[in-house]
């Protein structure tokens, strides 16, 4: 069963089945009674209809038919059966580094379990952040691939017999040796059952070059989207081999082979029908069993008197091929039908029994019970008397069958001690019912208990508003992100944005966040090179100054996007590594952190996470900090920026940020601390305290001199809105669940930015839910940030209304939130 522990077929975007989440064996009660916890009281719910006796079985698949006038049929019913078939097999992934005739490498992903398999996959490119998927480039998509949203494709696996004649399903993905793809991410889907096969609850991640451990930019990350998704770990991957050496900077495709066990289970529908015919001449009942299950089928049965459900062994003779099972039941092997379509048997029973109880046994490990109630099948053998019926009705009105069973058992115990052994089945039923109830209670109690939450904001007395500081601004700020991922393309964004300054001011924004201004390797500006060269793809330094002036005239503050974590070099060192900087800050490799092998830095180790696409700056050294402080102060003075939006602050200690902010004295500053929320088996956890704690810790390290984007709130809003899981909007203490709930004055709430949305779409807000998101952040404390794309869209009017409401009610970053639980 070890294989089962990881290959629980998780269904993305749906709550895991209750039993899947229950570790240990205590609650593995799968055979659950039907809805409403109805336990059929066999033989109790009796009704007279049209003169004939109809034994109505709650929830039975077919209405039993009786033919009292024909052939004395007392009972006839076809019961559905359900059994689980488990197939064990393996899946594998193989990277073939040796190029084929056309110079293409390939990765083969396959599986040897029968089914209609589909590879659901995406890729991560070199140097990319996060574990989000990207769509693979079209040239690598195998034929028959289907696009799924904008981040994945699905490719069917093709079945073919292997050398040993077994059917295997495989798909080949071919790619160039110099492909920019770093990692292939995938899960397998079985179309017929709809089951998903994941790797330890996350994606399979197959690195194309080397292992993930040293090549993975996120190796140091504590929490990833899919915990444990990296295919490392010796115990789980006994067969994995990752050979291949790896040059420090030259990417090479490495051979890789990994094998993963797969356990597929599916339900099979069968039936068993039972017919009881009264034979008045012999005073016996003829009982017939018929099932469509092939192979060996045994009925494990007994008879009972007086509706007690007490198993007894009928008097002999027993049917052929019958064994007595531990003095309490009979096990009779059914006879194979000659046409091979199933099994059948019929035998005579003395008529003095009131009923027959049975379950089916296929082998030592497979017992089939009544799907309807999870217990035994009960077959009444004779027409009940009217008096019985009356009595029974009283009871069933009073309580359900189980209690009645127990009562009968007690009576049985006190009067007939000798029969105790026969009651064990019933007692186990009680225990199972107890376990089932406990499991039900557990599943209810452990889920969050918020029914419906309506947040309303309490307006502080303005006197309680604190003086402005760089972490909060005035406390009443409303931020607009003044660009998107495409803004660099026109080459004169500063001019274009300046033209919208009045409009933005009139909408009620108090701060605009302008794009990174420096000379940059990438056109968007996030790969800065010469920090003092402010001519960028967004415009010239003169246009930038003009833009700032225009906004200042409109009464709007301007944030500069400062990329402090990393900086691209202009020159190579003697080893050919790009780590010598140019321009006014002409650092060498001593300014680069030592723990990123790509850039051969000679500074100290990084105080945060590394951004792998460029040399990370070692902020621990005074000369670096002094130069950066000077630069920030220069920009404050030269450009007129009022504050900062700090890029990738995960990369260095927040205490240095404090240093920079104290030196540059911004009016407002906000840091981008973006890492993944907590997920369990692909399901976002309710409690995101760990995630927001990391952000709060960073803010704390800056001594509150900077705010931080409230990534937690964005993530929770995704789930809450997309799936109407509004209970997520209140944490265990009834507070907002994001950074907003813990340190509202430093939380800069947002629903989208140039990375998550725009044309990148790394983590797009649920489509069509944007206004609901804005309703949330604009009516809550914290400093809301609105994305450019939303301001200039059909949403503008609604956003304007919300901002005016916020301003009218004087909601500020420290307003209090009251959770109103509405019935």
């Amino acid at each position, binding site marked *: 069963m070890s294989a089962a522990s990881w290959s629980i077929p998780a269904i993305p975007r749906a709550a895991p089945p209750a039993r899947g989440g*229950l*570790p*240990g*064996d*205590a*609650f*593995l*009660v*799968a*055979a659950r009674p039907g809805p409403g916890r109805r336990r059929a009281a066999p033989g109790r719910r009796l009704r007279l209809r049209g003169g004939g006796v109809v034994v109505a079985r709650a929830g039975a698949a077919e209405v039993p038919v009786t033919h009292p006038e024909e052939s004395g049929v007392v009972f006839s019913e076809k019961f559905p059966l*359900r*059994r*689980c078939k488990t197939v064990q097999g393996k899946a594998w992934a193989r990277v073939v580094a040796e190029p084929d005739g056309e110079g293409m490498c390939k990765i083969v992903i396959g599986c040897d379990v029968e089914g209609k398999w589909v590879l659901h996959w995406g890729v991560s490119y070199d140097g990319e952040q996060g574990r989000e998927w990207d769509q693979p480039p079209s040239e690598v998509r195998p034929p028959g691939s289907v696009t799924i949203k904008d981040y994945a494709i699905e490719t069917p696996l093709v079945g073919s017999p292997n050398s040993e004649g077994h059917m295997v399903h495989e798909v080949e993905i071919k790619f160039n040796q110099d492909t920019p793809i770093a990692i292939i991410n995938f899960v397998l889907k079985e179309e017929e059952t709809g089951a998903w096969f994941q790797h330890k609850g996350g994606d399979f991640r197959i690195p194309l070059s080397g292992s993930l451990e040293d090549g993975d930019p996120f190796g140091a990350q504590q929490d990833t989207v899919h915990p444990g998704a990296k295919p490392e770990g010796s115990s789980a991957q006994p067969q994995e081999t990752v050979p291949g050496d790896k040059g420090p900077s030259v990417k090479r495709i490495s051979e890789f082979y990994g094998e993963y066990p797969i356990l597929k289970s599916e339900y099979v529908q069968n039936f068993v029908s039972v017919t009881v015919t009264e034979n008045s001449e012999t005073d016996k009942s003829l009982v017939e069993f018929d099932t469509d299950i092939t192979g060996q089928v045994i009925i494990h049965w007994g008879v009972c008197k007086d509706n007690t459900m007490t198993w007894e062994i009928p008097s002999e003779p027993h049917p052929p091929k019958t064994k007595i099972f*531990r003095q309490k039941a009979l096990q009779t092997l059914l006879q194979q039908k000659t046409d091979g379509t199933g099994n059948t048997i019929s035998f005579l029973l003395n008529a003095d029994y009131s009923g027959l109880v049975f*379950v089916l*046994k296929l082998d*030592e*490990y*497979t*017992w*089939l*019970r009544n799907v309807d109630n999870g217990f035994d099948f009960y077959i009444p053998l004779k027409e009940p008397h009217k008096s019985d019926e009356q009595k029974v009705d009283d009871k069933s009105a009073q*309580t359900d069958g*189980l*209690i009645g069973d*127990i*009562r009968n*058992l*007690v009576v049985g*115990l*006190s009067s007939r*001690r000798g029969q*105790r*052994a026969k009651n*064990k*089945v019933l*007692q*186990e039923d*009680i*225990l*199972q*019912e*107890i376990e089932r*109830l*406990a*499991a*039900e*209670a*557990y*599943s*209810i*109690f*452990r*889920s*969050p*208990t*918020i*029914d419906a939450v309506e947040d309303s904001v309490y307006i502080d007395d303005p006197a309680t508003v604190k003086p402005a500081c760089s972490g909060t601004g005035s406390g009443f700020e409303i931020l607009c992100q003044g660009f998107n991922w495409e803004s660099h393309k026109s080459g004169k964004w500063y001019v274009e944005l300046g033209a919208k300054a009045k409009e933005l001011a009139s909408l009620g924004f108090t701060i605009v966040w302008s794009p990174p201004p420096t000379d940059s390797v990438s056109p968007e500006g996030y790969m800065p090179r010469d920090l003092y060269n402010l001519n960028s793809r967004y415009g010239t330094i003169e246009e930038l100054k003009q833009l700032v002036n225009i906004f200042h005239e409109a009464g709007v503050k301007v944030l500069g996007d400062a990329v402090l974590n990393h900086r691209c070099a202009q020159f190579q060192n003697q080893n050919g590594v790009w780590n010598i900087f140019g321009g006014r800050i002409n650092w060498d490799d001593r300014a680069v952190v030592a723990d990123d092998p790509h850039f051969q830095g000679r500074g100290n180790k990084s105080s945060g996470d590394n951004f792998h696409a460029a040399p990370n700056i070692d902020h621990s050294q005074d000369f670096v900090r002094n130069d950066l402080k000077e630069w920030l102060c220069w920009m404050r003075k030269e450009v007129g920026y009022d504050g900062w939006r700090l890029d990738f602050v995960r990369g260095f200690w927040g205490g240095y940020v404090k240093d920079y902010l104290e030196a540059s004295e911004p009016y407002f500053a906000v840091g981008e601390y973006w890492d993944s929320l907590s997920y369990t088996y692909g399901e976002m956890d309710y409690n995101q305290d760990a995630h927001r704690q990391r952000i709060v810790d960073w803010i704390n390290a800056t001594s509150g001199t900077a705010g931080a984007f409230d990534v937690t709130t964005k993530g929770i809003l995704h789930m809450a809105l997309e799936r109407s899981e509004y209970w997520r909007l209140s944490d265990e203490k009834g507070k907002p669940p994001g950074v907003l709930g813990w340190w509202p004055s430093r939380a800069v709430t947002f629903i989208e930015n140039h990375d998550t949305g725009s044309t990148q779409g790394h983590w797009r807000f649920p489509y069509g839910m944007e206004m609901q998101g804005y309703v949330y952040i604009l009516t809550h404390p914290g400093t809301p940030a609105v994305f450019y794309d939303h301001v200039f869209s059909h949403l503008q009017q609604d956003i304007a209304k919300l901002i005016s409401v916020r301003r009218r009610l004087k909601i500020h970053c420290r307003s209090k939130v009251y959770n109103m*639980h509405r*019935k």
Partner: protein
Amino acid sequence: MEALLSTQHAAAASSPTMTRPLPGAAPAGRVAFGRARRAGRASRDAPRVATGLGRLLGQAAAAVADSKQSTRDAEDASTFRLFVGLPIDSVAPDGSSVSSAKAKGIEAGIRAVKLLGADGVELQVFWSVVQPESPDRFSWAGYRAVADMAAAEGLSLRVSLRIHGTPGGNVPILPGWVTAAAASDPDILFTDRSGSRHEDCVSFAVDELPVLAGRSPLSRYEAFFRSFTDAFHDLFESTITDVTVGLGPNGELRYPSYPPGSSAATFTGVGEFQCYDKYMLAQLKQHAEESGHPLWGLSGPHDTPGYNESPDSKDFFRDHGGSWESPYGDFFLSWYAGNLVNHGDRVLGMASAVFGDKPVELSAKVPFMHWWHGAKSRPAEAVAGFYKSNKKNGYSPVAKMFARHGVTMVVPGMDVCMNKQHRSTGSSPDQLLVQIKNACRRHGARIAGENASLVMTHTSSFSRIRSNILTTERVRPSHFTYQRMGADFFSPKHWPAFTEFVRSVVCGEWDEDDADADMAAANAAGRRDNAWETQLV
């Protein structure tokens, strides 16, 4: 006999209560408890419908016992009852309905413990939930619905009437109108030396002062109790068997000696005296003047340690030469403890009047102050209000008062094991339990039990509970309430062990049964394995 359940079978190997007795040396627990329960059950339940596994097996055993003509049973007819606590926030904060997310869970939980063989469930009824907005309106619908669930399953109900709050319990701590009264006069709340107020607890000093919307807290409590008896009058004959009167914070008769806002249940420091609201200070002053030591009444002792400090860190509680031993110390501690007993006396007197004609067992809870038990001054007990002059049993005055009202003393700590406690806090749960039992025996008060916390990590706590409630001592709990249902309670980490515990308690032992018990167990285990696979279908 029916040792047919695999877990039970497994338990047989480890649990002493399951072993076959030596000839002539029957294990104490087995004889006294098992018989008592069986005999009691059998006679009491004869007309009742026996339900649940435990009842079923217990009765069967009773039949067996009867048939063996046991003579010792007749004298000991008192029955032991097992309750399970319902979630503390079962009811929506305004009392109007069952907490809707939990209703189904509560229902399933009630049924599960019923089938398991528990006698009843315990429901905490909060003043703050029943009268959330106004002193004149009572909102019973939610609690009524929960009580009806228990009634529908034929379970007994122990109702704990809670006046003071439980910080962190996800339940409003005090009714809004009481909080409002406290906002205008903060001194009606317990106050510590540094002036911090306990927002969950109204000072005992104002019991009889008209501080709550023109009436005294005591009369408000009485109105609450009376309203309860009216709203549930029809359940008193059938379902409600026990009423526990909340006398202070966390439902216990004690001062809130823990730091304001923290949880009384988890605090294990020395604590501080809570006598610094102006009403308490006035009473202290008056008492000092009457005793001829006016200077002693100006304030509380100045040399007491802080909440989490060691008792040795300041003079008052020092083992040798501490001021607690001085005439002043005795004066102050006696007054402080006496005030607590007087408060209990007032409320229990009122409760006895309210519930006097109802067929219920009245009980009230005391705290289990086992920390710093090793220090001579028993500082944790003293700041909670348990003190008797001349180093005598601090629980004694309380036990005496309980006995006077015929109220059962609920001792919440039957699970606390020595090994769970840090030695540095000088905890001694064993000695404390003996001390409490001695006090009760001397004054003739009955006791009942609760556990301090869910037994999650140390399953040995279950055997401790078992030995504490299945004892042959004269002071034996008349009922035990296991606290409390919730996610952890039903989690696979806890539930199986709890199931085993309950079965070992309610079913007594199987050992006297037929010779094929082992075989039956083996059969059961075998069949259980099969059943197991069936479940996987």
